């Protein structure tokens, strides 16, 4: 049973993300990772998705949901291990 993740990528990122799994609209089916990833921009409202998909960087995903308490220039990220868990990020201020 392969992981399914929310998908959102710029054209250049889409090229890199392709190898992680088949994309179908706003959804990606992960070829080999159990992790979804999400990169969000923090602002006044809820975190805004910037890059979503199957995880493509070398890291584990011990959490089932997407949350973060760290940011770099208002960008934050998460990895998580359930279907579509990366669709929203909970910011722990």
């Amino acid at each position: 049973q392969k992981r399914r993740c929310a998908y959102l990528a710029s054209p250049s990122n889409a090229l890199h993300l392709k190898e992680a799994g088949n994309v179908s609209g706003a959804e990606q089916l992960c070829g080999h990772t159990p992790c979804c990833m999400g990169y969000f921009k923090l602002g006044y409202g809820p975190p805004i998705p910037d890059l979503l998909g199957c995880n493509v960087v070398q890291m584990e995903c011990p959490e089932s949901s997407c949350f973060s308490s760290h940011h770099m220039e208002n960008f934050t990220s998460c990895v998580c291990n359930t279907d579509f868990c990366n669709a929203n990020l909970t910011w722990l201020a």
Partner: protein
Amino acid sequence: KALQTVLGAWEEERSLRYVLEPATAAINNCEGPCGFPLAEANNHAILLHSHEQSGQPLGRSPCCVPLRYADLQVVELKGAGTEITIKPNMVATRCGCR
């Protein structure tokens, strides 16, 4: 000569300071002496070793260094958004005497 696991972190590193993820990764290191028989040595390393063995002084003995590397795929901040990038020569994967 042995490839040793070393965890690298790059928040202090100027060229890598916009990397969001991963924050750390095993970058590895080559360690150990270059004694005979020299591991993965080329002609030049062999000749340096000979030079020393024959009693002549050498300003630097052969050193066990990475010969091959793997790149690391990262997500970094670029302009107004996040970008998947490949950083070259981040992880040592093979050692030899030079």
